[in-house]
């Protein structure tokens, strides 16, 4: 995939000067690096809120999922701090872009010690494993956790029966998103609203180019600028 990306990029490069051809190799690599990074962001942006919602208690579920969104904003503030730290170091943009290697390593090692989501195990037909994980992370002393496990198991059994009985799209239940009218309406509405929100509101343009805009208009030194990126 890396070589395909580089070839695509180099073929679209109109300029034929020698210096740019030497730089084109690095340009292709940084594009590939950004795209691979983006794969990680997209994958994690959907999985982490669901994982957190499946493992914590009902009382804290809303708080914890909002904590994920809060951390996104916190990360943007930290990005300013990191950029300010490295702006005087030679070869600085590499350290700026690669400095969150530390966080991703901590997170990767930490996630190895975390248990699998019990609701996912139940969905895959392993209720005993789900019970083992449930005992570890929720405890079965309190009535809340016992009831929730019970309701989870019963609704999983009901779902299995419905799929086995051939209701609608038996082999691919996710096709219900398109075939059932209520789900299809919600799907279309959500997609249109998010699309309009991203395209018609130029938030990303402002965020990505904020520093440059402020440098052109007001200040000369990049570090002395106030926080523009959120």
């Amino acid at each position, binding site marked *: 995939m890396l070589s395909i990306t580089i070839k695509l990029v180099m073929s679209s490069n109109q300029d034929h000067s020698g210096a740019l051809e030497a730089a084109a190799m690095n340009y292709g690599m940084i594009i590939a690096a950004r795209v691979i990074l983006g794969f*990680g962001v997209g*994958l994690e942006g959907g999985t982490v809120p669901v994982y957190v919602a499946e493992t914590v208690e009902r009382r804290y579920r809303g708080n914890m999922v909002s904590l994920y969104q809060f951390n996104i904003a916190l990360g943007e503030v930290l990005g300013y701090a990191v950029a300010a730290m490295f702006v005087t170091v030679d070869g600085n943009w590499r350290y700026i872009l690669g400095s969150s290697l530390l966080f991703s390593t901590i997170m990767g090692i930490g996630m190895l010690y975390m248990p699998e989501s019990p609701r996912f195990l139940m969905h895959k037909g392993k209720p005993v494993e789900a*019970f083992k994980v449930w005992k570890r*992370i929720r405890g079965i002393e309190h009535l809340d956790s016992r009831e929730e496990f019970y309701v989870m198991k019963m609704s999983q059994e009901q779902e299995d029966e419905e799929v086995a009985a051939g209701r609608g799209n038996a082999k691919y239940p996710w096709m219900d998103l398109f075939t059932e009218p209520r789900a299809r309406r919600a799907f279309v509405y959500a997609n249109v609203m998010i699309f309009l929100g991203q395209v018609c509101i130029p938030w990303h343009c402002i965020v990505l180019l904020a520093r440059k805009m402020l440098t052109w208009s007001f200040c000369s030194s990049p570090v002395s600028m106030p926080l523009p990126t959120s």
Partner: protein
Amino acid sequence: MGKGVKGAASGEQHENIEMFDPAQQGSYMDRREMTKDQMEDAVRAGSVPHVNTSEAVDIAKNGGWEVDALMTEMQKEIDAQGGDNNGHFDLEFQNPKYFTYLIVAFASMGGMLSGLDQSLISGANLFLPGDLGLNDRQNSLVNSGMSLGAVGGAIILSPANEYLGRRWAIILSCILYTIGYVEHYHQVSHEF
């Protein structure tokens, strides 16, 4: 498996009264008119009656005996398989609440990585085009390359969750992050 557990239980159901055969009964309200002996029989035999979701929620709210029966049944299965053997990666704490804090701390770090990435490219934008000699078209492609990758990441999200599980999907995303960051650093040695 889920079906297997029910199958084993229903095998023993024939010894008990038809009380526990869901096909012959009405709603769960009829089944709740059971004596204490019948309940104990059901728990011993491991036959938890089968209800659907709305009935299950009602049972749970009223604190029915089926909840405890399910726990006992599951515990019997675990003991039959040889007890809780937790490997090295299976943490266990005195108080399960610590687990909540730990899970949320590590999972939210993913959010921080998301925000960091989006903000750092803005900071690096001051020096990146000069260093690599990019013109404006190439520069904006570098800036939005991450969002482009996020499209691909969202597409592989559902298959990854189904086949790998949630925990391994998050670990896979960490591996992809690391590969991406190492590629950034790799250009240092490549240039010189």
